[in-house]
């Protein structure tokens, strides 16, 4: 594990925080969009297992994590103060695939990992920028870092379930509208139900579809075999080493229900 000083841990939206950890450039160099870190929350034993978070952005000698408070680990994380030290393991998992002519679809905190992708893509560092970003949340208050996203000059389409900002309804409605016009590769991250719908859209419009998946992880490094996602051939994929990004067609749809 590496140790780094917390330089920022700031509330960004309802229950969503932006955490910055100081990391040597040497280590940062090995980080790729789509990968994640496993962060040890405290020195004590509850919570016991470090929690996984996507790399949200990288900036000189700081790595950023964008996280939502959902349980005891993320709650504890949100209480950590600037100046304290955190331990983390990473980068873990496989980078995003290198796509062209694709769109991004993010639901809620699923947006986190795409920040780093945009950073790299804009600098033409081995990733291409998406043609459009579709970003949905429950309500306006849960949409985060819009100005950061927009700073890349890529068009961002927004939806909220309650219509408090952007299109009223599911983000997948907007994605379908887009696909109806012109099929494009999809890279999506978000809640299970959204991913299920995206997989169905991908099949309907016959476009290659990549899903960034989630499951409870323990080791994050292929040691425990705990992070399985059923594949369609009644086999199991291991999220932490085979993922977290998977081709939608590989995944058993039953997993989403």
């Amino acid at each position: 594990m590496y140790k780094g000083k917390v330089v920022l841990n700031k509330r960004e939206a309802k229950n969503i925080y932006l955490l910055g950890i100081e990391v040597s450039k040497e280590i940062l160099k090995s980080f790729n969009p789509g990968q994640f870190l496993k962060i040890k929350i405290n020195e004590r034993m509850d919570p016991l297992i470090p929690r996984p978070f996507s790399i949200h952005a990288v900036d000189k000698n700081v790595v950023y994590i964008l996280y939502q408070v959902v349980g005891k680990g993320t709650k504890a994380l949100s209480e950590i103060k600037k100046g304290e030290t955190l331990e983390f393991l990473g980068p873990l998992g496989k980078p995003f695939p290198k796509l062209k002519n694709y769109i991004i679809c993010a639901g809620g905190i699923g947006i986190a990992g795409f920040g780093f992708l945009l950073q790299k893509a804009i600098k033409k560092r081995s990733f291409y920028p998406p043609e459009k970003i579709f970003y949905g949340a429950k309500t306006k208050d849960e949409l985060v870092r819009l100005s950061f996203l927009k700073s890349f000059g890529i068009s961002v389409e927004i939806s909220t379930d309650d219509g408090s900002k952007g299109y009223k309804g599911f983000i997948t409605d907007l994605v379908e509208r887009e696909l109806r016009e012109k099929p494009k590769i999809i890279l999506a991250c978000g809640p299970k139900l959204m991913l299920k719908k995206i997989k169905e859209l991908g099949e309907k419009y016959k476009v290659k579809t990549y899903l960034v998946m989630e499951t409870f992880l323990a080791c994050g490094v292929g040691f425990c075999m705990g992070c399985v996602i059923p594949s369609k051939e009644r086999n199991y994929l291991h999220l932490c080493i085979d993922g977290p990004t998977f081709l939608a067609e590989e995944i058993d749809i039953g997993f989403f229900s």
Partner: protein
Amino acid sequence: MDFSVKIKNLKLKTPLMLASGTWGLGENLDKFFASEEIKKNIGALVTKGISIKERKGNPPPRLFETPCGLINSIGIENPGIKEFKKNYLPKIINYGVPVIVNLYGERIEDFVELASELKEEKVDGIELNISCPNVEKGGLYFSRDPKSVSELIKEVRRVWGKFLAVKLSPVGPVFEIAEICEKCFADALVVANTYPALAVISIKPFKILQGGLSGPAIKPLTLRLVYEIANKVKIPVIGCGGIISGKDALEYLLCGAKAFQVGTANLIDPRSAIRIMQELRNFKDGLRNKSNPC
């Protein structure tokens, strides 16, 4: 300070073993350890449970965190003994420390076949897993029935002369089974596997996960078992349960364990073994400097 131990005919550089199922199949241990670090810190490697045929394991969710503990229900996911020998074992042996293969079978014949398969391999020992709470057959079945354990060991002994350990379940007639293992010439006991546990993972809809509990939560329970079993049998006891620090390891040694295995700690940090051994060394040095070594 010399930490080498001899457990029957097995010579270990340190008393620390990586526990079964908590370091994958060894494919990427070298991503986290330098070759010298393994040789200096890890006394032995105990493989994931290996069965005759490939096992895909249980459907998700397979993990759930509880207060200071982890429930797992992996279901012995493994490629089967043939594939294991071909594609995984050579790399594991190559790490240069004693290798103990954890065997999982449903019937006595399975264990005998598995042991026979390993006869010609450069492995140093086997560990009979009669205590997995996450499988339908086998597993806990043996641990409830002392007679079948006695038969199991006798049959495996016909084909296997090298080091043979039995990994006990912490539940059931554990003292009786420990004594039977001794009588049947097992070389060592591993005390213990995970504890049968249950978590409610969703209240509505009501969903539960049944599996085995490991980690610091159960350390006081397994420490007690080790203490009592080490007082009852003369064969070496290898402690396993909730070891996260060098102090935990030392406690097991003081309670009668000859060696110890580290499981869940590897999942928290893949390099835990290095830290644990370092802490254990510091501890022992500290104690020695105070007056006589403990």
